[in-house]
């Protein structure tokens, strides 16, 4: 079991200044990823999971965004403090990212070959012929048949699944040590999703690469993550090893999410357990526990104090004033 931390984010706080007021997107979250580990970040839209990753990669447009505080230690360097030149060296080379919609992340007027060889020129300094050979190999690695010919094709000539493979090939071009995958399979069909997940799992093992996999799908997480972090309204509400989290969820939100899911492998026994209400408005500065208005275990304290992330079992952390197993205050 490797214990070396590849990246450690501490007390990250990101806000957006909008005409409506300040959006409290990420509210002081801390986490780490070991080398070669897969961390899944789970949460609903607007919970801050993507903004967190974009923040430490310094890809947040500023203004309106602002990283208010925090540290992101990557191999003894604080990514939030280093120069833009140094950052450009890390971004795309050591830390790569793939996105939900490959069509909007690929340039529609440049060939795939041109786009995939670009990081090979800038980061690895390969010449034209070398870069082309490497690009062909990368495309073959991610399962694109007839790669040499397809280098001259444009993004619209690829299907959704194939485009995502191209994105993965580009992300892997410089053999990164951390891959951030932001809902890479959400726009794909289940059979294509299964192909992509298998591909990433295979590459990860092969290259000993760490992966941060952002998703809202608790089914996908179960199959591929080592550790899971659950986010809600810009806070981490629970974090644990994947089996521990599913066996023994200790935050009411995680618990409710797991019971709200229908299962393909089980006969229906009753109506789904739904979570009442909707996620909170991030324009209001959080006061008390953000999940309290939708929670079935709320006690008085929840409305006044936001619970910190506390250890509830070995390597299992949850932010809740109540013990969900008994419903009694801790």
């Amino acid at each position: 079991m490797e214990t070396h931390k590849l990246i450690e984010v501490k007390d990250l706080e990101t806000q957006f200044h909008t005409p409506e007021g300040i959006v409290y997107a990420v509210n002081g979250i801390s986490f780490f990823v070991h080398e070669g580990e897969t961390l899944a970040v789970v949460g609903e839209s607007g919970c801050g999971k993507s903004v967190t990753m974009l923040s430490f990669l310094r890809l947040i447009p500023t203004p309106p965004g602002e990283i208010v505080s925090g540290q992101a230690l990557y191999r003894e360097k604080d990514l939030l403090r280093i120069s833009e030149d140094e950052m450009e060296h890390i971004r795309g080379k050591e830390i790569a990212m793939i996105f939900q919609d490959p069509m909007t992340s690929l340039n529609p007027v440049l060939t795939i070959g041109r786009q995939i060889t670009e990081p090979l020129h800038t980061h690895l300094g390969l010449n034209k012929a070398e870069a082309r050979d490497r690009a062909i190999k990368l495309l073959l690695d991610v399962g694109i048949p007839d790669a040499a010919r397809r280098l001259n094709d444009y993004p619209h000539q690829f299907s959704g699944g194939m485009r995502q493979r191209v994105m993965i090939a580009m992300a892997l071009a410089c053999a990164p040590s951390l891959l951030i995958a932001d809902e890479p399979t959400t726009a794909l069909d289940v059979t294509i999703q299964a192909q992509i997940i298998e591909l990433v799992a295979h590459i990860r093992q092969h290259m000993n690469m760490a992966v941060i996999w952002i998703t809202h799908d608790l089914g996908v997480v179960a199959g591929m993550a080592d550790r899971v972090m659950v986010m809600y309204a810009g806070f981490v509400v629970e974090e644990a090893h994947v089996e521990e989290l599913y066996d023994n969820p200790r935050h009411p939100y995680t618990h409710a999410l797991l019971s709200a899911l229908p299962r393909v492998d089980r006969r229906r026994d009753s109506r789904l357990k739904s979570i009442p209400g909707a996620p909170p408005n991030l324009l209001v500065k959080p006061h008390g526990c953000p999940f309290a208005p939708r929670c079935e275990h709320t006690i008085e304290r929840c409305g006044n104090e936001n619970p910190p992330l506390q250890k509830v079992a070995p390597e299992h952390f949850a932010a809740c004033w109540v013990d969900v197993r008994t419903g009694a205050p801790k």
Partner: protein
Amino acid sequence: MSTETPLVQVTDLKKHFPITKGIVIQRQVGTVRAVDGISFSIARGETLGLVGESGCGKTTAGRTLLGLYPSTAGQVDIDGHDLTHARGKSMMEIRRKAQMIFQDPYASLNPRWTVNAIVSEPMRVHHLINNEKDRQERVKELLTLVGLSARLVNRFPHEFSGGQRQRIGIARALASNPRFIVCDEPISALDVSIQAQVVNLLEELQDRLNLTYLFVAHDLSMVRHICDRVAVMYLGIIVEMGERDEVYEHPLHPYTKALLSAVPIPDPRKERARQRVILTGDVPSPINPPSGCRFHPRCPVALEKCKTETPVMKEAAPGHFVECHAVK
């Protein structure tokens, strides 16, 4: 299956879209066979799930079924009315009885209309309530029925969240007292915690109003939860159809097997122990579907005759239909 006449009866329904070239002089250069001969029936009060991957024609099937697209061939009977030949008054009658809930709660509500205008439109169109005041009372009643506050009648869509907008869409569908509702991916644009709310609402309404649903979706877990029977579509045709638990527990068609094995299960131990049937390649184009069995280029068990002979639908078990040469 019950012996009474089904509410919806679809026979060999086809919807082809022409591909044209030229701006002034248009000529047809091809055909997209989006729906290429599907047959099924839905009993009163039943929910039939129509599942498949994107581009398989499930949404087109739902829309053609309601006459939103004119059908190319085939017959649709809804509550005794023949939709394919209906015009004028009889068409209006079918449209009143059969409604639709759309996938995207952002695109399916007119942003310039108030909730009152949106939900009361079917009543105005079908002259159900001709007095403005009574109509608004009925809108309030419908909003309460779908779990929204009646005070919100004069708000605009942008003031609502995705889940609430979907409730407005449901209220609109209910406004004309329909018997049959096509739910076209009604929850796929919503967050997980909101999906369960909307699904439970659809089920409650079905019980209270004795509604019949065609539930078009790609989320196989949710389909197993909400539907009584499922039909699996691939490239414009139905390849397998049967009772929910029968199909999920004993899938016969290789495509259904692959599809079911690709659905993630939220249980780490089970998920890691699973043997997946990983399909290679993508869904072929419906412009020029493969010869013989349409699934043969991706099928892990394809036989020689699958390339040339089109399989026919057979009843492999009572009420369980499958279209595959490999199934005896």
